């Protein structure tokens, strides 16, 4: 969570609001922020830390582990219409890659702005060419994209 908090400014530039959720109470969230996270992130956590002690939200998102009583590392991108555009769920020992989340926000926002006229190929980075799906592109993707472009 500290990685997201530390990179919060990048998300704000993209107009993204962050909500973090765990089964800890909001009181524990306060203690964690005030006693530890504030030492890693200037000013402490800048977004709402949501308490889901009964795991109800986690169940609805498929990330709650009934045996352990905790929530997996689930990351969901929700668009302005309230539609889930992306999800990634990891078991606890492996952390997420923040840069990939930012890349996906760039890509989903581009697709939305184009009203679906453009798509982003594998490995796409902001600024690179996009695909314009249509009759002319069928059988011709090789002209504008190849696997070596993903680095």
């Amino acid at each position, binding site marked *: 969570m500290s990685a997201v908090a530390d990179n919060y400014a990048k998300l704000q530039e993209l107009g993204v609001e*962050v909500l973090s*959720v765990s089964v800890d109470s*909001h009181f524990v969230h306060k203690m964690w922020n005030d006693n530890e996270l504030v030492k890693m992130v200037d000013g402490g956590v800048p977004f709402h830390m949501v308490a889901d002690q*009964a795991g109800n939200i986690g169940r609805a*998102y*498929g990330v709650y582990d009934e045996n352990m009583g905790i929530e997996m590392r*689930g*990351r*969901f991108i929700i668009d302005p219409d309230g*539609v889930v555009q992306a999800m990634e769920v990891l078991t606890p020992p492996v952390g997420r890659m923040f840069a990939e989340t930012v890349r996906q926000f760039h890509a989903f926002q581009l697709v939305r702005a184009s009203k679906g006229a453009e798509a982003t190929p594998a490995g796409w980075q902001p600024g690179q060419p996009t695909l314009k799906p249509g009759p002319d592109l069928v059988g011709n993707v090789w002209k504008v994209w190849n696997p070596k472009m993903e680095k």
Partner: protein
Amino acid sequence: MADKPQGCARVTGSVVGEGPSSAPASPAPETRKETAVTARVGQKAPDFQAPAYFKGGFTNVKLSDYLGKWILLCFYPGDFTFV
């Protein structure tokens, strides 16, 4: 998002539209109910409301209040863990 008085009941997040226990301060944690997994890409995100900590105060967050904005929703195993 104003500060709310904090009672001693064990409050928790709840999915919106799941009956009376969706009230944020409902003191009935022992009535265990099954919540179906409804999060799917390309589908509406399950709405929820829950208590939260935000910059020194306690708030109540409702996902649908954020309609019109992009949201990054992150679950993690627990406070004071290491990754």
